[in-house]
């Protein structure tokens, strides 16, 4: 591992004397020696540390400047963030996708981390930042991939390519005015989408006050999906849903090693929310059927004065990875189904393109589409 201690020392020297960040709180940034990205600089300017009752709050803001030290274009990067003294059982990651960074070009990565720990705990809070992976434009990958960032970034890249293709075809068939209309619809869709705060706890129920019932999944069958959900249920108690069990069938001619089922919940007032997803690493041969089980509990907080009560659930296959590493994601047509339209956000790439349109106008959007 190549240590960036020299760089950190220089950063420390540049920090103003009245900085509220303790030296002990500065992170240790380690990239592998053969990493295709270099750390050029790190700025922790707005970071601070304060006492909150019996706890110590560390607001850590890092603005890193990285350089593509390799020969291929970078499409995505995932950095892993951990603080062993604070949460030995948990870690975080920051992933940037839809990048277009050529050799020797630089790009920024922002990390906004907050750590809360008891005051009496040890004084040092060693935050570690490392590299989990880099995705290149040919979909090749570099990195330890401990957080499955290869799959995460590849899925994002597939979505980005699908949506760029779609908007290019809109431009080709309907001209700039049709593209403008699509962007306005996308911005409206983003604003209308309902959002929900969710907690996930490993294992059994978080509370025991509500009687529990078993609820069957209804399924949205996407025509091109290589996986067919056959059956499914979860245990519901008030605002908690736990232990989902799903039965899926591989209806493609290729073996499948990963799939994800999106989980939509409907509450007592008729509202729909995308509650979460049930991922599964498996080995599913063509035509084979398999069961998926997750021993975890989803908990939804109150919506205003009324507690959310789950009345029914819908599942749909949201992504599939074949054994050969290729991926399947729903088509734009699949996503146009009214139920998915209500709950699914536009893809990351669609949001990025809509932002370019909103900030810089139609000409900039067309130029961006033509870059790829």
């Amino acid at each position: 591992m190549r240590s960036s201690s020299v760089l950190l020392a220089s950063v420390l020297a540049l920090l103003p004397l009245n900085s509220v960040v303790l030296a002990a709180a500065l992170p240790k940034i380690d990239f592998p020696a053969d990493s295709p990205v270099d750390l050029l600089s790190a700025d922790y300017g707005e970071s601070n540390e304060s006492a909150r009752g019996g706890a110590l709050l560390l607001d850590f803001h890092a603005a890193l400047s990285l350089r593509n030290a390799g020969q291929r274009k970078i499409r995505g990067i995932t950095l892993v963030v951990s603080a062993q003294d604070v949460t030995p059982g948990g870690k975080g990651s920051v992933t940037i996708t839809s990048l277009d960074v050529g050799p020797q070009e630089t790009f920024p990565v922002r990390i906004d981390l907050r750590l809360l720990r008891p005051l009496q705990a040890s004084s040092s809070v060693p935050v570690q930042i490392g590299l989990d992976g880099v995705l290149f434009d040919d979909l090749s990958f570099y990195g330890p991939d401990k957080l499955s960032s290869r799959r995460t970034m590849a899925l994002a890249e597939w979505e980005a390519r699908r949506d760029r293709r779609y908007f290019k075809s809109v431009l080709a068939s309907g001209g700039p005015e049709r593209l403008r209309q699509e962007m306005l619809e996308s911005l409206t869709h983003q604003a209308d989408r309902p959002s929900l705060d969710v907690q996930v706890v490993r294992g059994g129920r978080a509370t025991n006050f509500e009687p529990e019932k078993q609820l069957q999944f209804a399924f949205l069958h996407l025509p091109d999906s290589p996986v067919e959900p056959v059956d499914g249920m979860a245990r519901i108690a008030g605002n908690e849903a736990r232990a989902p069990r799903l039965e899926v069938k591989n209806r493609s001619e290729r073996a499948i090693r990963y799939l994800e089922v999106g989980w939509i919940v409907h509450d007592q007032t008729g509202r729909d929310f995308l509650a979460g997803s049930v991922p599964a690493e498996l080995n599913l041969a063509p035509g084979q059927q398999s069961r998926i089980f997750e021993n975890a509990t989803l908990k939804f907080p109150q919506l205003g004065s009324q507690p959310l009560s789950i009345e029914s659930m819908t599942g749909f296959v949201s992504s599939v990875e074949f054994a050969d590493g290729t991926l399947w994601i729903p088509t734009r047509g699949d996503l146009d189904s009214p139920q998915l339209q209500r709950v699914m956000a536009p893809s990351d790439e669609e949001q990025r393109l809509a932002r370019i349109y909103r900030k810089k106008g139609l000409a900039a959007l067309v130029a961006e589409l033509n870059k790829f």
Partner: protein
Amino acid sequence: MKHLEQSRIALLAGGELGRVERWLAQRHIARCAECRAEFAGFCLAANDLRELAEVMPELPNNLNWNRLSQEITGNVRVGLAAGEAIALFDKPAPSKPRFGWNAALVILGATLVFGIAFWTSLPPQQAEHLLASLKRIRTERIGTVIRSSAATPEEAVVEASSSGIQVKENGRTLSLMQPRSDGATVSISMQGSAGVRFVDADTGQVTTNKVYYAEQ
């Protein structure tokens, strides 16, 4: 002859004594009628509880389990406090050991009756919760007498909201906040991760922050 401590007899009846201690206790019980009777009482009580647990009927759904848990906690604590008080009262009069044994048996019987009352009206899915509560009390109150494994560490909780995502563990929190952005999409995976996706308003970059459990 010096009699065995009551806690030691209880551990023997529950099969929780180590090899050497068990051998020594069994050797003493073989020669001491009083301790043998005490041991038989503990064994009977344990058997009764086991049998009752097997034939537990269903309870009505509207029971307040939190209140029941508090009540049983309170009663066990009262029983323990009474036992301690009786033990203190009993100390200066070692010539009358029967009073202490009788009091202990009364408390044991009362606890047994109380336990039976709950067990008979306990639905199976609630048994686990009640047992966990009792285990916690045992660890907190008499953990030095009855050997117990360490308390289970607090479960890690992963949370996602539009303001950020976090993993909480033993009162400590690691959060990834989202900077100024044009709307965020929150996602939760049942494998134990939470994510928030947004387009950074300053850089225009598509960013996905995630927090995970350790096993990920």
